């Protein structure tokens, strides 16, 4: 309580135990989260950066408050998987207080969600973020007036500069349920009717307290296009009610004021205007926004805002193409340059050490474990640092810059026409680009895609035909050893990527409308890019390095001990069909564990350039690694995961067959 006083709270009421940060995409929730709790949630400049819940703790002396950062959601009825994560948290009812982060520069649209949150009956505090950007655009927002209208604390903040956060924290005690808006009489009548029905079946005191106002549940039912399983999970009593209403409505007992748009109405008409509550809420949000906003500067009509001209220029199709092309070319050049540099440096730096290790290995008897360990140490140690580390690091840094600028969604818009051949909307390029870093977070990032179909296609492409930074590096490194024709390898990867996409896009047709918010351009902050790259690189030291070292020792042991010789028995068959020796299939199998480990198997085999080209192509297009498979099961279900696994194995074998026929 002492601390409460130091935060300027004179009369602290009940402390919330769990706070959820909720807001529309790209308003800066994660910045607020990091500033409040010291977590390191990733911050980028595109909608859909956060697709999972992040938990942190806000500490006040003795008290610890759990803070949950949620994926951005436009509304409580939005329909992508990441937005539903947020809705589920609010439905489950463990949240005592919501901090609604809103973007001061886009007040009207942000208030739409705020008005929905007011309906929930959960205490609310509004963090009016990016007031600096609004001010720069000549918009002055009267926080006090907004506070009066909404009936909840409104705190202006600039989260990136930590301004106003103290005030935000101290306002947690003032969090209130606020004043929900009233709709037109017609709509209120329907809500009232539903509310009374809900009150009858959902008792006030259940095992745990009822966490939502019946009004909120009534509106939720009205606004959901399909009946919401998440709602039934939280309130099983509602299922019977909805079914009863559906039967009544179906039997002709149409509600006295029918809008043909409730979740349970069979008379739904696709051409019917959107839900009346949504349209009315939009109008009210706009009215509130214009009441509290004053346009300060003289020349601030929307067309003439500062910085607009640059964005207008960059949004033209030609600029989009140039940006996309330059980004791809520049990224490639930088990666190659850095890898080359590291290769030389690491080789020079480590060669005395390696010579010493090799000479040391000579002292041990042939086949002894110590000897084996020492001979395999160089490749387990040099390859990660000379090839994998620079590739991963450069790709992560480039990705960080790209994420921060706001160019990523612009590339998505430019490439929408191209990706639509693969049956997916333009925003699919975001997870695909992320996949070149690591495919596991990329599979998660597909949550921001609009439908299951697109998620499936993009996840399949990611699992099969997108090499992650580590694999890319190892493939390049191993290819140099065997004089592999990399042009063939990457040509095959590109062909399979395109082919699979086009075929899946044709097989699973869908109407999928493309709608994407394009955020304002920003200068990337180096410290943010650096921090993100460092966090992402932790995977290198935690998984990549130990795995590469461990596996290279084990493999040398297996090969020199002749344990893989049973595979060479397959030799006659495999060399006929695929043009490779049987042991190569150990590498193909290895891709299930980690794709970047597979080329290490090849490193232990005496391969000809042709054999190596085929083998490297086969492992470059192979099964999803274990972390990705686990995520596929979690995100898409068993059947889809197994389908992708089998398809990937089939493609890998098919590529081997085809190359054996085609290559001279």
């Amino acid at each position, binding site marked *: 309580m002492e601390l409460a006083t130091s935060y300027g709270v004179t009369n602290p009421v009940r402390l919330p135990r769990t706070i959820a940060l909720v807001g529309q995409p790209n308003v800066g929730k994660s910045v607020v989260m990091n500033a409040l709790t010291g977590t390191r949630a990733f911050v980028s400049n595109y909608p859909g950066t956060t697709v999972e819940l992040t938990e942190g703790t806000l500490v006040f002396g003795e008290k610890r408050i759990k803070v949950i950062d949620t994926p951005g959601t*436009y*509304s409580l*009825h*939005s*329909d992508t998987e990441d937005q539903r994560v947020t809705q589920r948290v609010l439905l489950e009812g463990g949240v005592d207080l919501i901090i609604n982060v809103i973007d001061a*520069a*886009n007040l*009207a*649209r942000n208030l*739409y969600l705020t008005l929905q949150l007011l309906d929930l009956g959960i205490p609310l505090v509004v963090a009016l973020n990016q007031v600096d950007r609004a001010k720069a*655009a000549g918009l002055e927002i009267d926080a006090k007036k907004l506070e009066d209208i909404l009936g909840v604390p409104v705190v202006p903040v600039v989260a990136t500069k930590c301004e106003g956060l103290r005030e935000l924290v101290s306002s947690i005690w003032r969090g209130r349920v606020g004043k929900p808006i009233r709709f037109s009489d017609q709509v209120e009548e329907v809500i009232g009717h539903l509310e009374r029905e809900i009150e009858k079946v959902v008792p006030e005191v259940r095992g745990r307290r009822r966490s939502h106002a019946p009004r909120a549940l009534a509106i939720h039912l009205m606004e959901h*296009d399909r009946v919401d399983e998440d709602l039934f999970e939280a309130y099983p009593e509602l299922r019977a009610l909805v079914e009863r209403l559906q039967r009544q409505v179906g039997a002709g007992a149409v509600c006295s004021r029918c809008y043909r*748009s409730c979740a349970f109405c069979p008379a*739904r008409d*696709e*051409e*019917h*205007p*959107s*839900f009346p509550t*949504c*349209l009315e809420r*939009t109008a009210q949000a706009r009215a509130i926004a214009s009441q509290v906003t004053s346009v300060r500067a003289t020349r601030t*009509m*929307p*067309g*003439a*805002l500062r910085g607009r001209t640059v*964005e*207008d220029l960059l*949004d*033209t*199709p030609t600029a*989009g193409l140039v940006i996309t092309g330059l980004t791809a070319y520049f990224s490639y050049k930088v990666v190659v340059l850095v890898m080359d540099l590291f290769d030389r440096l690491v080789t020079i730096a480590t060669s005395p050490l390696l010579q010493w290790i090799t000479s040391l290995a000579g002292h041990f008897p042939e086949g002894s474990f110590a000897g084996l360990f020492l001979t395999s140490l160089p490749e387990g140690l040099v390859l990660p640092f000379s090839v994998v580390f620079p590739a991963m690091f450069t790709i992560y840094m480039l990705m960080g810059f790209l994420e921060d600028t706001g160019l990523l*969604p612009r590339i*998505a*818009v*430019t490439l*929408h*026409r191209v990706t*639509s051949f693969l049956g997916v*909307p*333009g925003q699919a390029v975001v997870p695909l680009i992320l996949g070149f870093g690591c495919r596991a977070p990329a599979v998660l990032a597909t949550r921001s895609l*609009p439908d299951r179909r697109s998620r499936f296609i993009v996840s399949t492409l990611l699992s099969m035909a997108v090499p992650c930074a580590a694999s890319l590096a190892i493939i390049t490194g191993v290819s140099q050893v065997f004089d592999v024709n990399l042009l063939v390898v990457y040509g095959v990867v590109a062909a399979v990527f395109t082919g699979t996409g086009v075929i899946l896009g044709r097989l699973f047709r869908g109407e999928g*409308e*493309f*709608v*994407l*918010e*394009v*955020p*304002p351009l920003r200068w990337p902050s180096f410290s943010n890019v650096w921090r993100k790259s460092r966090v992402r690189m932790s995977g290198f030291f935690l998984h990549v390095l130990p795995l590469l070292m461990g596996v290279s020792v084990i493999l040398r042991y297996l090969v020199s001990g002749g344990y893989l010789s049973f595979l060479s028995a397959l030799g006659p068959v495999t060399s006929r069909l695929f043009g490779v020796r049987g042991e190569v299939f150990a590498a193909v199998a290895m891709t299930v564990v980690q794709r970047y480990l597979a080329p290490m198997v090849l490193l232990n085999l005496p391969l000809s350039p042709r054999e190596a080209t085929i083998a490297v192509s086969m492992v470059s297009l192979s099964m999803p690694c274990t972390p990705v498979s686990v995520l596929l099961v979690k995100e898409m279900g068993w059947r889809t995961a197994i389908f992708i696994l089998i398809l990937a194995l089939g493609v890998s074998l098919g590529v081997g067959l085809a190359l054996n026929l085609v290559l001279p």
Partner: protein
Amino acid sequence: MWAKAELSLTDLKPGDTAEVISIRKGKRAQMRLLELGITPGTRITVVAAHPLRGPVVVRVGMLEVALGWGLASSVRVRRSSQAGHL
């Protein structure tokens, strides 16, 4: 003054300002546009129109939103005077 004829969003050129009259697409599409602040009555400015039936980028308030061609063509609009003369 422009004639108050109803047009499709895809008929507009970059720089044009218009008011949305209706969205002739299913409820799902209407809701997705509503989430991004585009409803009947919204004033929008076309920022870019990508070739070959590519996306149309419009500005709504201070935000930019890209719409696929199919969706854009279902958005009926009425040209309004330039934003600066409001």
